[in-house]
């Protein structure tokens, strides 16, 4: 405490402890699902929360990586790590392609463009011969970590996912708090000004987009290995909307918000699994309420509360 450790650091420590203990507290697959989607939402938040770009097509990166990883592991029989890296690389490349085109327009058009590209990926996945159409890819083998540890056991699989999540999360955290992240922040606040200060705004946006797409791909690859399938729902626009909801609900522009949002949304979906169409209705209602009354999200509100209660202490 002598160096004035911030509440955020304590928060991280508590969450890390929770992450390590989670498979003993809840069903491991549930915990892994939360981690994958938390990584997905954190990657998305780098773009929405810190650069001010709303991508409405992030499912394209999650889903395509899931399919590539699944195909690489199942048909080509590649080791799990290689398959995951291949999926991530595919999403990164796709991110460079789509991002390069989408950043040519700004504001609301950006959202429409990314949505359109994601829909294109959806139709491609439906039609391509190796994606299994409506059935998706099933029976993806989990394989072994480092060719040694079989990932079939829930605990080894869990810690494998946790390690990857922490790596991705750390990368997002680093990016946000680096000079690069501050330029992104400047672009979000005032793009024209950042441009006039001599920053190559387009390049910064593109780099943020590519990092975000790559990490979303990592999340998708992990998800495919964990659940052992990749399905059309991973590339559907509902998935793109879901990640927006997680980020909004948890608090956009906060480091921990997306993870909290992912936890809330996955828990909600788990509880409502038997409710059929009502899941969609309730998700929509949560969306409406968050937009109208809860724009700062859980973490944003908590931060504001802390600031108010302990005036002057920055969380």
């Amino acid at each position, binding site marked *: 405490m002598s160096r004035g450790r911030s509440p955020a650091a304590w928060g991280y420590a508590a969450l890390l402890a929770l992450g390590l203990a989670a498979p003993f507290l809840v069903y491991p697959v549930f915990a892994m699902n939360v981690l994958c989607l938390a990584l997905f939402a954190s990657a998305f938040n780098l773009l929405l929360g810190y650069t001010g770009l*709303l991508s*409405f097509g992030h499912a394209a990166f999650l889903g395509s990586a899931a399919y590539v990883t699944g195909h690489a592991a199942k048909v080509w029989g590649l080791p799990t790590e290689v398959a995951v890296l291949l999926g991530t690389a595919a999403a990164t490349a796709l991110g460079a392609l789509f991002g390069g*085109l*989408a950043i*040519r*327009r*700004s*504001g*609301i*058009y950006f*959202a*429409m*463009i990314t*949505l*359109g*590209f994601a*829909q*294109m990926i959806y*139709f*491609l996945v*439906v*039609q391509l011969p190796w994606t299994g159409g409506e059935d998706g890819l099933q029976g993806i083998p989990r394989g072994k970590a480092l060719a040694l540890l079989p990932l079939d056991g829930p605990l080894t699989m869990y810690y494998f996912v946790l390690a990857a999540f922490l790596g991705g999360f750390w990368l997002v955290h680093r990016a946000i708090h680096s000079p690069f992240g501050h330029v992104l922040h400047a672009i979000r606040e005032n793009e024209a000004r950042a441009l006039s200060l001599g920053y190559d705004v387009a390049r910064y946006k593109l780099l943020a987009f590519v990092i975000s797409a790559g990490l979303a791909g990592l999340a998708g690859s992990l998800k495919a290995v964990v659940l052992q399938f990749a399905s059309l729902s991973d590339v559907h*626009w*509902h998935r793109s*909307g879901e990640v*927006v909801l997680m980020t*909004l609900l948890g608090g956009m522009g906060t480091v921990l918000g997306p993870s909290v949002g992912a936890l809330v949304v996955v828990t909600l979906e788990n509880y409502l699994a038997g409710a*059929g*169409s*009502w*899941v*969609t*209705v*309730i*998700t*929509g*209602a*949560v*969306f*409406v309420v968050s*937009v*109208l009354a809860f*724009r700062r999200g859980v973490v944003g509100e908590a931060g504001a509360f802390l600031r108010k209660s302990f005036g002057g202490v920055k969380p």
Partner: protein
Amino acid sequence: MIQALSGQLLLGLINGSFYALLSLGLAIIFGLLNVVNFAHGALYMMGAFAAWMGLEFLGIGYWWALLLAPLAVGLVGVLVERLLLRRLYGLDHLYGLLLTFGLTLIAEGLFHHFYGNSGQSYPVPGALQGGFRLPFMYLPIYRAWVVGVSLLVCLASWFVIEKTKLGAYLRAGTENPRLLQAFGVNVPVLRTVTYGFGVALAAFAGVMAAPIYQVQPLMGSSLVIVVFAVVVIGGMGSIAGSIVTGIGLGLVEGLTKFVYPEASAVIVFMVMALVLLVRPAGLFGRER
């Protein structure tokens, strides 16, 4: 051969008229309200369902549905604007998009709960059944009717917006709402009316689509994504531009269905990518 081509082109023309009606509504709503109305597809679906429910439960025929369904859905739109959208003016655009996205999920989920995935079929009205046998193709009367009426409605909307006093208010409000308000025009009411009108256009398209496509809860969502791409391609700057782009892309899609059917679902998005490369502001657009 030529028969198949002209058949696909006709279907493309029909889709194009729907794209035009929907993107027109999106453009005027965005212009005045600064809201990208994701719910446009859901409202189109609700228009089709309103027609089907009217016939099924109340015995209201096609012709009345053509008038009543847009009114009913337009009323829903007015309520949405009054109760929800109004609270978001002055905030970032993205909140309007997210709110209407949530509303889309609610509407689709509700209709899905009550009517499932399978489509309901809606009969072609008696007076428009049958078709003409042209030398190169068979032209169902109903389809010709849809194209004709859509074009007429588009033209009428263009006329109202560009040539009447109400349209002048609308355009003024798009340029500078505060100044318009200072001149004594009631801008909040103008916004409500505009949203209701844009939404009614979508519902109108829905009613006309009902006898051609199956009436089902998800009919609007895939459509609205294509319409967004149309909007990106055309740019929302000009009313005539929206109409021309919509119809043109419908035709391109029909042509693709004939030449290389596998690509027909993605061709609009490919055109979008091409336009972004060549002319990022859109064919008729000014970056705003």
